């Protein structure tokens, strides 16, 4: 099990399309993925969950991955977030 923080840096935060890409990414790994913001934790593979996290720009999330490919999952998610979900904003 790995836990690591990530900072949401893109301008619109985890808006619908970014959330969509995050869920796609998380779902491509077999490990379980959890996202935590404050005391609220959601399943990273659920679009509804991720949307209701309402993570705007500047928010820090705690990512937890747990499973066979947990390291790849963590790396993949971190990269996606740091590259602003490919939006460049």
């Amino acid at each position, binding site marked *: 099990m790995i836990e690591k923080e990530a*900072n949401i*840096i893109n*301008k*619109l*935060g985890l*808006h*619908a*399309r970014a*959330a*969509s890409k995050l*869920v*796609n990414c998380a779902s491509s790994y077999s490990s379980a993925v959890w996202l935590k913001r404050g005391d609220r934790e959601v*399943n990273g593979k*659920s*679009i*509804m*969950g991720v*949307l*209701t996290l*309402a993570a*705007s*720009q*500047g*928010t820090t999330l705690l990512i937890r991955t747990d499973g066979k490919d947990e390291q790849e999952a963590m790396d993949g998610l971190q990269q996606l977030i*740091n590259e*602003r979900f490919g*939006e*460049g*904003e």
Partner: protein
Amino acid sequence: MTLALTGHAVARGIAIGQCHLAERNELEIGEYRIEPGEVDQEIQRFRSALTSAREQLEHLAGQVSQDSGATASEIIQVHIQMLADSSIREAPEQGIREDLFNAEWALQTQLEKILAEFRHMTDEYIRSRGEDVVQVVRLVQRKLSEGSEGKEFSNIPDRLADTLVIAHELTPGELAGLHERGVAGVITEHGSPYSHTAILASSLGIPAVFGVRMAQSLIREGELLILDGRLGVVYANPDDAFINHYHDIQRITSGFRKSLENIRSLPSNSLDGEIIELQANAEREDELGLAVDIPADGIGLYRTEFLYLRGEAPNEETQLAEYSTALKRLSGLPLTIRTMDLGADKTNDALDFNLLRSSINPALGLRAIRLCLRDTNLFKTQLRAILRASAHGKVKCLIPMLTSVNEILMVKSLMQEAREELTLEGYPFDQSMLLGGMIEVPAAALAIEDLGQHLDFLSVGTNDLLQYALAADRVDEQVAHLLDPLHPGVVRLLQHIFNASDSLRIPVTVCGEMAGDRRYTRLLLALGLRSFSMHPGRILEVKQVVTETHIPRAAAALLHWLNLGNERHHTPLLRLLDQSQTSH
């Protein structure tokens, strides 16, 4: 007789055509209990409906992305993902199994649970995603009720060229469907300009107006309509004057766009051979991209307020990431970063700006550099981030709303502290990063000789400069008309700024709206300005004027106007400047 109806302007553009009123197939959702023996069958029925809905959306996403790129298909992707989410895909099955609800009822119950969650969201944008969930569920409900052939609308013809569709409301998928059929414009009675459908309309380039109350009742089938997407108005049964007017606009717009394309490849030199710098005001990804495409000579104004309007104040890493991304996007073009200018009409609860609220006149109060020099931690964080960014590309730092030399000296001292800290910590940065000041305060404008000694460059913020100089609030429509750039006092003020900068040999740019307004280009050139910064979409227009201006002639006409006595009041300056170009 022309009937004018208004709504929310959603997507720019003008559409003229016949209207078609879209009739929605009413959905009858039967909710009843099933027998225990029917559970498996019901679950099967539910799953088929889900599959059918998913296939429809995937088909649409594929088609849409071919025509119109990423944004459109991403929006539909969100719907597809919602369909796959366990809260929609699995949870209703529990309702079928345990409560013996039929599929429709189980789904509806689950929808209500989801919507209740969304209602708690404070973020307006996220809350309106609830709409998307409703749309997705309705699609599944329709599949359940009517099978895979179930259609939303009962009466959409295959070809919609020259037709404007009026619907009660539209989902992104439905809009994409209309787009495929070539619809010319779209009107809805209900719908927010922030909805996904609105975003899609904009990205597909379909002129649209949403929220036109009673449109379907007030407008008749087949009636001629003019849709003005920019104003958010629909004209039904327009008389000839309207029709001719809008036809003209359509023609001029396309002709104008073509002529601007020719300008793109020309250098921005005046007729007398002066090289004029045309930079862009940009901070958003699309604006930066546009600046690179035009191409602009650089980014003359990169505003940073957006970083501070998102909840918590941004830390150094966040800012650095933002600036670095911008630099990467600019591939070598210089970036002038303006430190945060939060003040009068941009306030935020998260930062402790109670100070702003309590002051009687926020525009004249504690904002921009004044605020930053009070909260030096906040300010130094930004300075550090800007310095670190300078290692990744050509960066200049711009201080807003300068009033006194003292302020500049304090900024420099903080900058020095930041430099020393970064050096100790081992972070690289551009040792010779330039520091400039925005001239928007009239007293500062009159004291350039003093302030200019301590700055590497100047940028004139004409929006606020005019506001302060003419003592009129640009947000107050009752006095906004007083903000006349051609007021002799303003012209003299600008002349002073440019002359003083010239004597000191420091470069000066104008980055206010005036710089991007082609009506004033000749005036600014005549006053001595050689560097402009504006919204990237305006650069080509302004360049066009630059390439058609002989500056010495314009300057002579300006001088003549300034020396007029009483007649000045009746002599239109802009016309004089234009006339100077042809007669000599």
